[in-house]
């Protein structure tokens, strides 16, 4: 009677659309199938409107009807037909199961009767007792469920198929209950518990079958070995998914004499189980049984005795293994043995937080959770990443581990139970607990629905709009409110994630303020002891001290205190990410106190959490920067503005210095201002460096520029105080040129910005006539603009008497001027420049060393170098770079220096002499007791090896290769490679070692505030340096190894080219 599909027969498009069909033509064709001949098409369409995916449900319905015509009877009953629509429309896999095994159609057509062998269909539904599952599954393999050690009578693939069919029958019944419940989010915990118990029952049946095999293999002995299966992870905590690996641990006990034999039997029993649950058989497998959480992981024996487990956990286990144990619960096998295991092992979980390394492994775990692991499906992850299920679980477990030591009531396995318990013991606030639990249930519900479709293990949101639409319908009760399309679903999911993310912070960190009056009535209040526990778990060494700082920071009615109450909890977490949380917190307190209520500080706290995070990172890493910040708190304002963290160009600094000098004619005040500018610029560079904004070369140049500006300023102040202001000076022509243009030729900043009204008079100063021009020449690393924090400044003072001046008087004046420059930069100021590291100038590299005159005329230099200079003095000249003084003199000096240093290969005798000196330096200069492998400067493959090699090659080749004419070590090294004087791979080795040593050297001072030329030995120091060098937490040993390797290799290269071995 069925006509071919036509516009007029069967349901119209409108009813199909409103029922949710997407392919109407196809739907109409299907509805016209012969199987539906006797049924009312309109009824079918109406019923299938409850199906999450009506198209899929219709096909499955027809196919199922073909195998089990009795299915037609459900149409008479609204409840049963709804179950059919929900099941077939949400789970293709379970629909296929029924088609494959139509005997189980009773679950749909006669649920009341089916309930006798499917307990979840009892009237109590999900609240029914799960205990019969075990009996049902054991009976499926022909085992006596009342026996102490049930043994299956079915064997092999027959047993496997029977077990799996019985499992899927129960699973189908459960899915029906789940999918038809009006509030599936509320039902989720019960569904998960059923899933866990069903998995336990399946493993029990698998064990019965495995035992039958063992009896055959080992005879009577098999009866003398008991096995218990301990569920771990979600199965242990009764919060399992529809499909997931089942994590287990096996434990055995036996009355056999021979332990090895007993262990062999236990291993056979344990490994046999998965043959029945998972291996190939006529009905497909269930899920993987994963025993890798056992002691020693996949390398460990499969089963152990209770004693052996205990032994392992007491002696060897890692912190994460205890975290895994938190969920352990016997799920199958001998119940007494399972209890023994739990009694022996579970208490250990709660003492694990006393173990060494707990804090650092917690930190690592925390970072793993937060790390958005590069993942192509990251945007679709329900489980991992910020705000995912893992985030909830981790937060809860962490709180359990931290507080479970003293609080018995939080020692529970299940995540939701734990949230309850934590709330009841006031570790989490009531509303936070509710939101957290709600979010968790919702994420789990989504996961369940996604897995139900194909019974595949996945935690990804679907990406096709249709699939999202189906998911939205499946995730709400039939006919209940809730997001019903893809966009609404996605947006609710994203909101939930975001909520979880902020709750994590709120739940873990907020209560750290409990001892203050900062928290509202609704928030969880911790006891002081609990606050200390949490701080200690975060890595604070002195929780009591930290509590005091927290109180000081968050108490009061000021706006600052109010803002700090909001931000401090997260900041405590950020500080804890660094190597020294306690020091960082103290630093923050000091900063906050010295900044008082400056508006931008409050603004930063309020608006720029990125700046606050950066601040915490710096405070926890660097006492050098913290100290400077304390005295220059305004610098904290730069943290939120990267453009403030760009090193100030030398010219700009010089302009500012000139302006200061003109406003502060008193030399003492002028030099104080100059030193303040230097300190500020060093701090700027340090902060930018610590924030990862600068590369190492830029840092070296920025620090060099700051020192140079200060020296230039000091020279001007010195000249002014000796000779008076330039405009009023009398004397010979050729006055000083005051800019950095000596080396780059740009003369834009001119000589002096004096306004003509200058009344600079230092009463104590006698006006002298200017007899000579003085030039300050930087040597060593400052010559190459490659200095580190806290470096001394190696210099030469060069002068040139004015025409007609008495040479001796000019010489005396040059020395006086030089001394004054040196002392201006180091002598105490009033008021003092707090926290300053004065710039110490060192002129010991001058001809004749300390015995020679402090300053020499250029002619005298020429004379000295022509007659007396040794090769190492020529070598030292390679680094010479004029930094302050007359531009003309600078040029003349450079021309002369070039004629000496780039004169051409100094010849074998000179090179031999250089090698000899270097060898002697290696033997003698290293401080007594220092380890050559760890000395950054003079050690094996350290800075000095690289620099000596580069300089020697410069001496030999710079005449023929103008590219080598540079004062910088790294530019010279690069040029040596480009000019093919050094092989590229050797250049790379040297470059690596030099950079690493420089970085560590900077790290030493940044971390401790003290200069040190040795790679630290103490682990905490090394750890901090490792962080400074960009290593991850806990990689101190790696840094050490890396340093020792790099420098060893550098030494090999050095020896090859320098000593020619």
């Amino acid at each position, binding site marked *: 009677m069925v006509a071919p599909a036509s516009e007029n027969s069967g349901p119209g498009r409108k009813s199909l659309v409103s029922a949710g069909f997407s392919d109407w033509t196809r739907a109409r064709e299907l509805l016209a199938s012969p199987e539906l001949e006797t049924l009312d098409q309109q009824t079918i369409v109406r019923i299938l409107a409850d199906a999450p995916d009506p198209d899929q449900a219709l096909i499955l319905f027809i196919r199922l009807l073909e195998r089990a015509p009795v299915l037609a009877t459900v149409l008479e009953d609204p409840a049963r037909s709804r179950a059919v629509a929900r099941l077939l429309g949400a789970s293709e896999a379970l629909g296929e199961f029924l088609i494959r095994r139509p005997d189980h159609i009773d679950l749909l057509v006669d649920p009341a009767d089916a309930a006798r062998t499917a307990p979840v269909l009892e009237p109590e539904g999900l609240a029914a007792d799960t205990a019969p599952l075990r009996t049902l599954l054991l009976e499926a393999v022909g085992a006596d469920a009342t026996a102490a050690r049930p043994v299956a009578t079915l064997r092999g693939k027959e047993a496997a198929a029977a077990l799996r069919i019985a499992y899927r029958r129960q699973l189908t019944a459960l899915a029906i209950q789940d999918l038809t419940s009006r509030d599936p989010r509320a039902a989720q915990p019960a569904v998960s518990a059923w899933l866990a118990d069903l998995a336990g029952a399946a493993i029990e049946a698998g064990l019965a079958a495995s035992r039958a095999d063992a009896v055959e293999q080992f005879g009577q002995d098999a009866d003398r070995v008991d096995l218990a299966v301990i569920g771990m992870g979600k199965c242990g905590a009764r919060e399992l998914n529809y499909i997931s690996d089942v994590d287990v641990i096996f434990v055995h006990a036996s009355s056999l004499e021979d332990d090895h034999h007993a262990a062999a039997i236990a291993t056979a029993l344990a490994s046999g189980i998965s043959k029945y649950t998972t291996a190939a058989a006529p009905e497909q497998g269930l899920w993987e049984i994963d025993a890798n959480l056992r002691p020693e992981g996949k*390398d460990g024996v499969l089963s152990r005795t209770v004693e052996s487990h205990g032994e392992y956990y007491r*002696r060897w286990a890692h912190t994460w293994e205890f975290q895994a144990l938190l969920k352990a619960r016997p799920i199958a096998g001998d119940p007494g043995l399972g209890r023994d295991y739990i009694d022996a092992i579970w208490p250990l979980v709660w003492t694990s937080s006393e173990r060494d390394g707990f804090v650092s492994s917690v930190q690592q775990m925390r970072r793993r959770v937060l790390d958005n692991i590069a993942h192509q499906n990251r945007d679709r992850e329900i489980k991992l990443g910020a705000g995912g299920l893992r985030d909830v679980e981790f937060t809860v477990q962490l709180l359990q581990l931290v507080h479970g030591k003293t609080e018995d009531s939080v020692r529970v396995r299940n995540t939701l139970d734990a949230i309850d318990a934590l709330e009841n013991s006031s570790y989490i606030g009531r509303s936070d607990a509710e939101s957290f639990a709600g979010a968790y249930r919702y994420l789990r519900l989504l996961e369940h629905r996604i897995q139900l479709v194909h019974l595949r293990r996945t935690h990804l949101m679907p990406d096709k709009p249709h699939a999202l639409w189906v998911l939205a319908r499946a995730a709400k009760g039939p006919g209940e409110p809730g997001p019903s399309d893809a966009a609404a679903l996605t947006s609710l999911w994203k909101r939930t994630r975001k909520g979880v993310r902020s709750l994590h912070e709120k739940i873990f960190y907020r209560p750290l303020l409990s001892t203050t009056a900062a928290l509202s009535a609704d928030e969880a209040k911790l006891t002081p002891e609990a606050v200390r526990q949490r701080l200690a778990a975060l890595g604070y060494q002195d929780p009591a001290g930290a509590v005091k700082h927290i109180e000081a920071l968050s108490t009061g009615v000021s706006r600052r205190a109010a803002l700090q109450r909001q931000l401090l909890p997260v900041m405590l977490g950020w500080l804890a990410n660094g190597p020294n949380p306690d020091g960082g917190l103290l630093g923050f307190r000091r900063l906050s106190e010295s900044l008082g209520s400056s508006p931008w500080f409050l603004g930063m706290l309020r608006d720029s959490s990125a700046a606050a995070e950066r601040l915490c990172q710096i405070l926890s890493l660097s006492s050098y920067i913290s100290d400077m910040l304390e005295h220059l708190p305004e610098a904290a304002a730069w943290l939120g503005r990267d453009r403030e963290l760009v090193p100030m160009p030398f010219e700009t600094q010089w302009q500012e210095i000139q302006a200061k000098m003109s406003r502060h004619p008193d030399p003492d005040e002028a030099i104080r201002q100059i030193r303040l500018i230097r300190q500020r610029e060093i701090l700027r560079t340090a902060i930018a460096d610590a924030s990862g904004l600068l590369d190492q070369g830029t840092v070296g140049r920025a620090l060099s520029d700051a020192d140079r500006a200060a020296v230039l300023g000091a020279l001007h102040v010195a000249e002014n105080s000796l000779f008076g202001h330039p405009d009023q000076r009398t004397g010979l022509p050729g006055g000083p040129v005051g800019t950095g243009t000596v080396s780059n030729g740009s003369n834009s900043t001119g000589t002096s910005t004096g306004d003509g009204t200058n009344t600079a008079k230092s009463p104590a100063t006698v006006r002298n006539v200017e007899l000579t021009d003085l030039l300050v020449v930087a040597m060593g690393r400052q010559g190459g603009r490659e200095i580190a924090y806290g470096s001394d400044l190696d210099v030469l003072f060069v002068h040139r008497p004015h025409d007609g001046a008495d040479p001796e008087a000019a010489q005396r004046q040059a020395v006086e001027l030089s001394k004054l420059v040196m002392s201006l930069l180091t002598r105490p100021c009033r008021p003092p420049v707090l926290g300053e590291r004065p710039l110490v100038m060192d002129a010991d590299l001058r001809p004749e060393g300390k015995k020679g005159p402090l300053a020499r005329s250029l002619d005298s230099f020429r004379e000295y170098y022509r007659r007396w200079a040794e090769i190492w003095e020529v070598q030292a000249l390679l680094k010479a770079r004029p930094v302050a003084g007359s531009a003309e003199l600078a040029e003349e000096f450079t021309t002369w220096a070039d004629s000496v240093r780039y004169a051409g290969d100094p010849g074998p005798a000179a090179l031999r002499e250089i090698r000899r000196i270097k060898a002697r330096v290696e033997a003698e200069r290293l401080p007594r*007791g220092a*380890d050559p492998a760890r000395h950054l400067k003079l050690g094996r493959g350290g800075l000095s090896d690289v620099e000596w090699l580069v300089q020697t090659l410069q001496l030999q080749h710079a005449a023929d290769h103008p590219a080598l004419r540079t004062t910088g070590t790294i530019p010279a090294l690069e040029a040596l490679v480009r000019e093919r004087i050094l092989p590229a791979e050797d250049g790379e080795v040297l470059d690596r070692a030099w950079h690493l040593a420089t970085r560590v050297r900077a790290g030493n001072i940044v971390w401790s505030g003290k200069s040190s030329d040795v790679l630290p*030995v103490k*682990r905490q120091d090394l750890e901090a340096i490792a962080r400074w060098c960009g290593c991850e937490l806990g990689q101190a*040993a790696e840094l050490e190894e890396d340093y020792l390797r790099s420098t*060893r290799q550098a030494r090999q290269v050095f020896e090859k080219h320098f000593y020619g071995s």
Partner: protein
Amino acid sequence: MDRQQEFVLRTIEDRDVRFVRLWFTDVTGTLKSVALAPAEVEGAFAEGLGFDGSSIDGYTRIFESDMLLQPDPSTFQILPWRGEDEPTSRMFCDVLTPDGEPSAADPRQVLRRQLSRAADMGFTFYTHPEIEFYLLQSKDPGPDGQPVPVDQAGYFDHEPGGVATDFRRHAVNMLEAIGISVEFSHHESGPGQNEIDLRYADALQTADNIMTFRTVIKEVAQLQGNYATFMPKPFGQHAGSGMHTHFSLFEGDSNAFFEPSAEFHLSTTGRRFIAGLLHHSMEITAITNQFVNSYKRLWGGGEAPSYVSWGHNNRSALVRVPLYKPDKAGSARVEYRGIDASANPYLTYAVLLAAGLKGIEEEYELPEAAAEDISALTSTERRALGHHSLPGTLHDALRIMEDSEFVAEVLGETVFENFLRNKRQEWDEYRVEVTPYELQRNLGIL
């Protein structure tokens, strides 16, 4: 305090143990021992025992000399040769820095690192050493300046009532009493030379066992009024003492070297492992043969393998694939014959395992097996066939090792440097010795 520690303390009490020795190993594999009074053991468990590492080879230098010994209670044993009068016990120790971190200078740590690398690749590493040694009348040389062996028997000889037979019986009993399983013991080819094979065990346990073994053998010899030596080559004219070791890798229960259908039943993994051993054999010779004297064994003829080669049951090859019954898949293994009896077992097994793993990882090609006796070939023939020589002296071996990034990585920078420093010093001292050979040969004529 954990149960294992309690057990140790209780046993000390019950058995009235008078001394507890804490054992650890220096960079050359010499056993170091500190004796504790029983009352101090509890404190040592809790906080470790501080010691001055500066005097121990390869631990530290003078300026950072404080180290901690952390006794491992699971290695607690009563030392059987001390009898019941004043029972003495021992525990192996982990060496820690003052911060409680594993010391980078601890040879055990070096081996552990390689084992965990193997584990990451899914392998368990088993070793089975055959340790040779000489039993002498005493430590002092005879009238001719040569050591005096206890007998004149030869390979597998049974000497009724012989000193050596008695000795081996005693030694084996003693070893079993201290928990070391012995597979095999027999008389070796040299006079007074013996071999005892230890049962298969994982490499770390084997290395611990070797350390214990050497002590036991020396103690038993002393009890008999004799002297036992593991010196690689105490007699110029007799065979040296080697420590051939059989290696196998297991992946779970299955032997990764075994493949029934392949040549010699040797799997691709096995071939690559051997290729790794051969490829790196020259770099690691300073470790496997660490004394000046070692090279007298290596180049002193006999069966010592001095050329880089492998063969199936070829006793002149450096690496040998022994015969075994094809149905015994589990016993597939390779034997490295270069090691001598005085090697530091921790470092030796670490470098050999690492070499093999590297062969597997980088899929080294295995050269042709050598069928003939390589030492019988002329040097040109050897060159033609591509058999390199192992280094001829400790000096040569050190020079090769110095340039080896591979060895540096396996040992870690600290042990690498300490080892080289120690060995360079040995060579420097040896170099200035005037030997009896020179006197005998030159004094009369020059």
